[in-house]
């Protein structure tokens, strides 16, 4: 398992030799710095904490400045931990770049989805819409939400309108189409969560089943 932190930059497409077009998402991945190494003896589990993107001293807190100082780097904007089965051999202060991935690797990408605010059932749960014409007054309404005298209440967990998006989401098993080591870019097949410019975590796919 390897983790790298980055920012989603946007989508584009790649042409293969035979003219096949693949939609790809460009991720600015790394360079990340190992800011902390957790070990079984001290913390009860093995893990590595990575930091991505420098941030000015003025906007960080004193504890975070001290934390970064231990790794000998500037304070970081985005810190995330990667749980490991055993110690990886990397030590605090090491840098990780996009080169840890190769063409054809499968990755899982975790990010925060775009916030959609208070959304109706059509957008939020994919309910179907009613007629707009023929005297129908039920266009985007959810319809019936339960039975009558029995049980005289709405069943818990009934899908309704509410806040949608801005939630952690993982898109699994995306193929790495290309790695630009010069600029530290990963080209991932398909879409990933979040807006352009959003922080993402890219890690080796857990299940590793290639998407058709």
């Amino acid at each position, binding site marked *: 398992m390897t983790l790298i932190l980055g920012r989603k*930059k*946007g*989508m*584009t*497409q*790649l*042409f293969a*030799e*035979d*003219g096949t*077009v693949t939609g790809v998402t*460009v991720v*600015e991945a790394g360079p990340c710095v190992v800011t902390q190494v957790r070990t079984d003896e001290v913390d009860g589990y093995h893990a590595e904490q990575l930091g991505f993107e420098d941030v000015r001293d003025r906007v960080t807190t004193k504890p975070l400045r001290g934390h970064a100082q231990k790794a000998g780097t500037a304070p970081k904007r985005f810190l995330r931990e990667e749980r490991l089965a055993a110690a990886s051999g990397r030590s605090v202060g090491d840098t990780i770049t996009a080169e840890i991935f190769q063409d054809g690797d499968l990755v899982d990408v975790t990010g925060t989805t775009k916030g959609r605010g208070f959304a109706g059932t059509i957008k939020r749960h994919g309910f179907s819409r009613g007629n707009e014409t023929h005297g129908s007054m039920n266009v985007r309404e959810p319809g019936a939400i339960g039975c009558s005298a029995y049980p005289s209440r709405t069943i818990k967990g009934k899908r309704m309108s509410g806040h949608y998006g801005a939630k952690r989401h993982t898109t699994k098993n995306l193929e790495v189409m290309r790695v630009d080591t010069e600029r530290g*870019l990963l080209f991932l097949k398909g879409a990933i969560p979040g807006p352009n410019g959003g922080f993402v975590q890219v890690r080796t796919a857990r299940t590793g089943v290639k998407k058709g």
Partner: protein
Amino acid sequence: MDLIQQIEQELGKKHLPAVHVGDTVEVHYQIREGEKERIQLFVGTIISIKGRGIRRTATVRRIVQGEGVERVFPIHSPRVKDVVVTRRGDVRRAKLYYLRDRVGKKTRVKELLGEKVRRDRDAEKARRAAVAAEEAATPEEGAE
């Protein structure tokens, strides 16, 4: 510049043929017949150009045996080897979808003439000559 725009510029073709909506063009499209590769010509009128950067496509319409045929070409595709403009069109619309409802003589597009067209044509000719000369200088890269 925006990173995505920059990437698209690097990945896409360096020189795109100057095509416009309404132009009559020959699209040189590489097709596969079993094992063999050959260039097929698709001659028709451009009725729509869509997309930005590397996603740009051109819809070419022609009449085959009285039946309208349209093909959408991603113009940055490596399969599209060349696009030759044979006739410029004088049109006042960005999309010529109205041609779909027309038959016979009415499907014609007025030709664009004038000093600018001549200048564009000469510039295109000069560019092609320059590219050809460059390819002649480096034959390995030119041969595909």
